């Protein structure tokens, strides 16, 4: 059991857990504790130090787009992202609820709404007070500066006028041939200009001081606004929820439509002539409406968890396309030096091309193949797939996937070629002795023997693909993590920075997990004890 566990841990590449397992089995406790200290406690401390430093340094660095978020703020942003997702899922559910559940839920929502009302008034009151307090405090601070500014401004402009007047006056007194005097005069004008400039600088500094005070955050106000926003957001959410449970509810809409249909049907049975025709038409139309309503779903906006899911689907789609191209070509390259020679220029030429270049090209080409996405068979087919359908795969998704493929396939291709080319001669001799045909030689000897290298390539490819994808989504505005980042950047709200930091961790974590998964695969296919590089 112990060894099985350790082996599993080893295959999964989670070797830092090994000492824990060993410790649990009471094996050399001292040594295991040391190992735990080194491989678990030290990294944890390092991370804690990182977070601590981050928390200490972040507030000191201010940009015009807001402060660098502290870990706490980032955590807040993460929970706000999650809340958004949760609430949207709730709204979606509410749309489809019916019967007793709907009524119960509605009652809860209404109750909460009524509870919120006084809270909101209070919050608004707080904001008003905080605002007033802030204004007085700012005015107090700014007041003297402004007075000084006005004073200085008046002084300076008076001084300037005076100097200018003196200069003008003296200009009339200049003797025509007195070169020295003229030079001195010129110098005076120069001094005047310099002085004016210096005075202007001084005023500017004062102004900057004032601006800084005005831009200063007022904690009371910030907190009041935060509270107000939280309540307002909840109210909005509950309002929408009550609509989705109330007259916006699908079941209620269907009931209403059904009632009307039945009424029409009853009238129709006794109607005659033109009226019968009109009614029949109405009934037919109503039937179609009911059909549509019954199939309708709440148009849910994209939330980060959904976008992550879509990004993963996109990166795997690209990865599969890339591998499907790279492995066969890599095998051919490895098998035939001639083919390799033919491919080398292409590989060398296309390998360094950036995703930023591939994406627009891919977009144009995909757009050419799918002129009308609404009616294209491929899009239709993808939309009806069980686990992928809801992601609304569109040309932008396909173009992003192709970009991922084009950027990531090179590692797999070169590694496959290398793996096939460097196959052990003895293994080939075995194939010769056995007189294996081409197909058997390929699938029983060549490919299995190069699998470890192919998987090493795939692992690099997936890593590259994941990095490229974010950029591709950002450019193609295909829904996904990249789009989320771009939207946040565009939002420019006070929490946008923090939300982008959340994405940094999410992307890093997912990248890590993907890499781990590939390591497991790599270990499973590698036939010797050589551990895959971490």
């Amino acid at each position, binding site marked *: 059991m112990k060894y099985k566990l350790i082996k599993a841990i080893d295959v999964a590449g989670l070797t830092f857990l090994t000492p824990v397992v060993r410790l649990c089995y009471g094996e050399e406790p001292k040594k295991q504790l040391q190992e735990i200290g080194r491989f678990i406690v030290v990294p944890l401390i390092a991370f804690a130090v990182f977070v601590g430093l981050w928390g200490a340094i972040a507030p000191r660095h201010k940009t015009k787009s807001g402060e660098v978020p502290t870990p706490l703020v980032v955590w807040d942003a993460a929970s706000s992202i999650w809340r958004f997702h949760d609430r949207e899922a709730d709204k979606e559910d509410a749309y489809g609820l019916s019967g007793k559940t709907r009524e119960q839920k509605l009652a809860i929502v209404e109750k909460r709404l009524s509870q919120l009302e006084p809270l909101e008034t209070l919050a608004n009151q707080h904001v008003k007070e905080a605002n007033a307090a802030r204004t007085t405090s700012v005015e107090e601070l700014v007041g003297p500066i402004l007075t000084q500014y006005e004073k200085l401004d008046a002084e300076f402009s008076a001084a300037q006028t005076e100097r200018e007047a003196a200069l003008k006056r003296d200009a009339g007194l200049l003797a025509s041939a007195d070169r020295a005097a003229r030079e001195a005069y010129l110098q005076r004008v120069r001094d005047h200009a310099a002085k004016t400039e210096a005075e202007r600088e001084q005023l500017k500094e004062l102004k900057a001081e004032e601006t800084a005070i005005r831009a200063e955050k007022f904690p009371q106000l910030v907190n009041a606004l935060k509270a107000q926003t939280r309540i307002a957001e909840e109210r909005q959410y509950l309002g929408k929820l009550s609509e989705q449970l109330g007259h916006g509810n699908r079941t209620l809409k269907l009931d209403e439509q059904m009632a009307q249909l039945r009424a029409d049907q009853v009238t129709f049975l006794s109607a005659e002539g033109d009226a019968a025709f009109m009614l029949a038409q109405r009934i037919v139309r109503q039937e179609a409406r009911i059909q549509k309503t019954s199939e309708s779903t709440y148009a849910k906006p994209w939330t980060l968890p959904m976008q992550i899911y879509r990004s993963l689907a996109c990166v795997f789609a690209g990865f599969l396309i890339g591998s499907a191209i790279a492995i066969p070509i890599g095998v051919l390259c490895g098998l035939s030096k001639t083919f390799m020679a033919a491919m080398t220029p292409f590989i060398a030429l296309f390998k360094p091309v950036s995703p930023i270049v591939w994406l627009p090209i891919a977009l144009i080409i995909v757009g050419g193949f799918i002129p009308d996405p609404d009616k294209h068979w491929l899009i239709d087919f993808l939309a009806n797939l069980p686990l992928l359908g809801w992601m609304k795969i569109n040309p932008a998704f396909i173009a992003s996937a192709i970009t991922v493929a084009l950027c990531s396939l090179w590692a797999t291709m070169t590694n496959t070629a290398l793996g096939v080319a460097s196959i052990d001669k*003895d293994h080939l*001799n075995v194939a*010769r*002795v*056995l007189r294996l045909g081409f197909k058997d030689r390929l699938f029983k000897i060549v490919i299995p023997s190069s*699998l470890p290298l192919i998987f090493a390539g795939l692992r690099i490819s997936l890593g590259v693909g994941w990095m490229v994808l974010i950029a591709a989504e950002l450019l193609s505005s295909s829904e996904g993590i990249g789009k989320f980042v771009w939207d946040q950047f565009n939002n420019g709200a006070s929490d946008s920075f923090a939300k982008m930091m959340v994405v940094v961790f999410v992307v890093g974590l997912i990248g890590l997990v993907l890499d781990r998964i590939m390591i497991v695969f790599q270990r499973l296919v590698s*036939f*010797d004890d050589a551990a895959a590089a971490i």
Partner: protein
Amino acid sequence: MAFIELDNVSLGFGPDGDRTEVLTDVCLEVEENEFVAVIGFSGSGKSTLIALLAGLLLPDSGEVRIHGKVQTEPGPDRGIMFQNYSLLPWLSVYGNIELAVKQVFPEMKTAERKQYIQRYIDMVNLTGAEWKKPHELSGGMRQRLSLARTLSMQPEVLLLDEPLSALDALTRSQLQDEITRIWEEDRRTVVMITNDVDEAVLMADRIVPLTPGPNATLGQSFEVTLERPRDRTTLNFNPDFKHLRNEVTEYMLDINREAKELRVADAIELPDIQPIDLTTPSGRMAS
């Protein structure tokens, strides 16, 4: 007509200007069911010889004939057991044998094949290790697996390329006994390459020395007339055995000395020059 015939076979490598002749005019005849050991120093072209027999290499001149038929490509009728096992590391013990069996006996039914493979696994004492991968096996077990795979193809000729040279002495003697046992149970033509005179004397019917390369060729052959089964514990006291062993060893040392003497002429003479003193005159003064 002998079963295997090497008829004036020569083979060399490299481009015209810089050509190394590995084997020159090698002639060998092996009778059916005969166990021949080819003995030689390392680098003398032993592996090349076995590759020629297996058909993995084709001679520049001369012919390799089996049953009188000129060999142009390798095949499962000449089972070769490589020096470094040549096991497929991604396949288990069972899988390695299965690959060969499937290919050689494609018409075999699944159940029958399973039994057949198991028989060979049992034969080489690998029972219980069926699902182990080669890297989980010891050197001796790997060589046994290699043997089982080769035997499972039921070759007419068994070509053993220094099969035991990478093993420790104990494992080696154990395997020598096993190979001999299996051969005695199921006789066929064997050509074994080795660099161990004892091994050759112990196992073979005839010993053929290979002169040191380049331009290696086969020397005079020694018949081993020792009674079978041969028991290594008593053999050491057998005067015939001792005599034969000494004879072969001496012969081998002789041809080696000859080869070395021949090669002295090629030794590079170093020019007789004195190093120049490169220090500055002042430095010389100081010292």
